[in-house]
């Protein structure tokens, strides 16, 4: 039963030059941006003005509703352009890099001593708070929220994702310190999900509350949603947070040195590249800068995230660790009006239960029932079947496998938004 669960899933192939092993190359892009997650609405108050110089890690804006949460500069530099929408909604804050600038140092004495509220303040002030994602609904957690559990993902099964275990090599102590700190944010268990190999941490890392989860090799085993579905489903009353292990190690470094590491590991892959690369770059890096000189001639799309669940973008999105460079297709050919009328009248297209569909959801959920509830707009059944633990990325593989129209991930987002509105969350 267990081995069967470990084997469930599919590994779709994305054409790309191979990602050769070895150390990632440090690569600062000259421009970077502070930006919201995909479809995230952040109302901000600016702290700096256009043209002003900022230190790396210094706040450039604060949330209107929660001024304690800062959006920080990913690198020392100068604010080039502030782009806010109506209601001071953040679109992007573009910065130019200043190679000689300094990084902001935080006072970590109280947080390092195990003071929970000081730790929260540190996380929120250093920008690391934004790396948490709360389920259900997949938003950044509110400043005072207490999760029922936290999942640390040291596994990633998305096609061509960088290996999290390689990122953590030599950072064992930082990871331990970070994990211990997470224990002050929740009363519940802290899960650490990794693939095979020696355990990264024992239960003692978080006062005996750490649980190790092993993920299988196939997608979607290495996604937080599927691990949580098995081990700790989220509900509105008991939200569960997830965070990448590299960010937890960064938290450990921050607590030790007072400096938040500015770089994270990102894989640059895709069919429109002559050479794949593993880089270490700053948050919100300029994607064109990351793949400069690597692309093959011809039009291409820059996708922040994996080829399955990424979005076309200019900047690296806050939680993404992948840049996929896809060959650009000039949209679908326009087709005959009659054909278009037929295909549009039949939406949502019916789902045929196949083995592929079942594997796309990891083989554990009653996949067809869940997807039928989703396309029928039956939010209650969706919640009963565990849909509150899932986010868009968890259904990206099902979208790929079925070619569903409208996208199942979009339907899930709609359902989650409806449930959130109903619950007043």
């Amino acid at each position: 039963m267990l081995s069967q669960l470990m084997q469930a899933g599919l590994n779709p192939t994305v054409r790309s030059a191979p990602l050769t092993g070895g150390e990632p190359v440090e690569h600062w892009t000259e421009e970077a941006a502070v930006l919201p997650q995909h479809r995230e609405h952040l109302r901000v108050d600016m702290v700096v003005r256009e043209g002003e110089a900022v230190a790396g890690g210094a706040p450039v804006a604060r949330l209107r509703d929660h001024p304690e949460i800062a959006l920080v500069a990913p690198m020392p530099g100068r604010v080039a352009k502030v782009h806010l929408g109506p209601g001071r909604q953040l679109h992007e804050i573009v910065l130019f890099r200043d190679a000689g600038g300094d990084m902001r140092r935080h006072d970590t004495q109280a947080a390092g001593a195990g003071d929970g509220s000081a730790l929260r303040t540190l996380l929120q002030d250093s920008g690391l708070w934004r790396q948490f994602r709360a389920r259900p609904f997949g938003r950044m957690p509110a400043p005072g929220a207490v999760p029922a559990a936290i999942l640390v993902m040291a596994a990633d099964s998305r096609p061509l994702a960088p290996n999290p275990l390689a990122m953590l090599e030599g950072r064992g102590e930082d990871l331990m310190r970070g994990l211990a700190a997470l224990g002050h944010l929740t009363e519940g268990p802290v899960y650490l999900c990794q693939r095979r190999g020696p355990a990264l941490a024992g239960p003692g890392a978080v006062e005996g509350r750490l649980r190790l989860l092993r993920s299988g090799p196939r997608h979607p085993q290495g996604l937080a949603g599927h691990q949580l579905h098995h081990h700790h489903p989220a509900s509105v009353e008991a939200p569960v947070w997830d965070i990448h292990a590299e960010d937890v190690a960064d938290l450990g470094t921050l607590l030790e040195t007072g400096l938040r590491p500015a770089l994270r590991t990102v894989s640059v892959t895709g069919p429109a590249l002559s050479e794949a690369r593993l880089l270490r770059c700053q948050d919100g890096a300029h994607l064109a800068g990351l793949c400069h000189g690597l692309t093959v001639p011809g039009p291409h799309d820059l996708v922040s995230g994996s080829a399955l669940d990424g979005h076309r973008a200019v900047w690296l999105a806050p939680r993404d660790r992948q840049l996929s460079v896809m060959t650009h297709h000039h949209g679908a050919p326009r087709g005959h009006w009659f054909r278009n009328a037929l295909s549009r009248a039949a939406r949502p297209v019916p789902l045929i239960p196949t083995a592929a569909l079942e594997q796309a959801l990891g083989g554990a959920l009653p996949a067809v029932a869940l997807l039928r509830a989703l396309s029928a707009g039956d939010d209650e059944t969706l919640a009963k079947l565990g849909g509150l633990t899932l986010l868009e990325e968890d259904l990206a593989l099902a979208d790929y496998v079925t070619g569903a129209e409208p996208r199942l991930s979009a339907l899930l987002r709609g359902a989650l938004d409806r449930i959130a509105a109903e619950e007043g969350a």
Partner: protein
Amino acid sequence: MMRGIWDRETVALLLLAALMPLALAWLWYGGIEAAGRLALTLLVSGLWHLIFMLARAQPPSFAGALTALAVAMLAPEDLGIFRLVMGISFGTVMGELVFGGWGRNVVNPATITLAFLGFGFPAAPWPDFVLPVAWAAIPAAGLGILLGVISGRIIAGALLAALLAWAIPGGAWPAGLEKVLPVAWIGLILLVCDPVASAATRPGRWGNGLLYGALIVLFATGWDGGAPVQITVSAALLASLAAPILDEAAIALWRARRHRALARKTEDTSWLT
């Protein structure tokens, strides 16, 4: 970003490809007469798909060919063209197209057609199959499982039912069952394993296969004068109608087990819905 190709038509084409060994063997042994029947059923089924495309903007589907094949193989003989056309029309329209086409239907349209013809014209003789056609259903099943369009669990459930029927009387087939088995096997592949009209959960699929097998055994031993195809069609119809409730039961079971397992793991159930 990336898109796959497993949409409805791909699955229908894969199913057709999987059924090819069966269809070709049947055509080989049936000769020109079988080919004529298949051409007629294909024509009528295609016509109704065309009408629904023009009237209701429903894209036509290759699944119509699946229905046509099953009807051509299993429909009673000597009906005459008019009755056969009426039967296929009823099954295709009322069984599939009024629900919005393949993928939204409740029962396999071929099963509905055959049940309609069987109950409507009980005097018409049911077809017989030579044994090689039943053998040809084995590669069909294998291909279907390999391509992922036929569920091995349904087949396994039905075989388990057959095994029990053989083992419980002490290693012998109950009277009357043996001559039904080849046709029941063909019906299993053609009618019961339709991915849309069968159960969609794993335990539900086992239950669906078991139920089909059990009904075959029941009808074969208890139904005096029932022709093999008649027994097969009746069992397929009832098993298909029971599929939603089997799924519902499987999901209720899954939720109960999951609730218990998670409660045991955390010893704190306050966060469970």
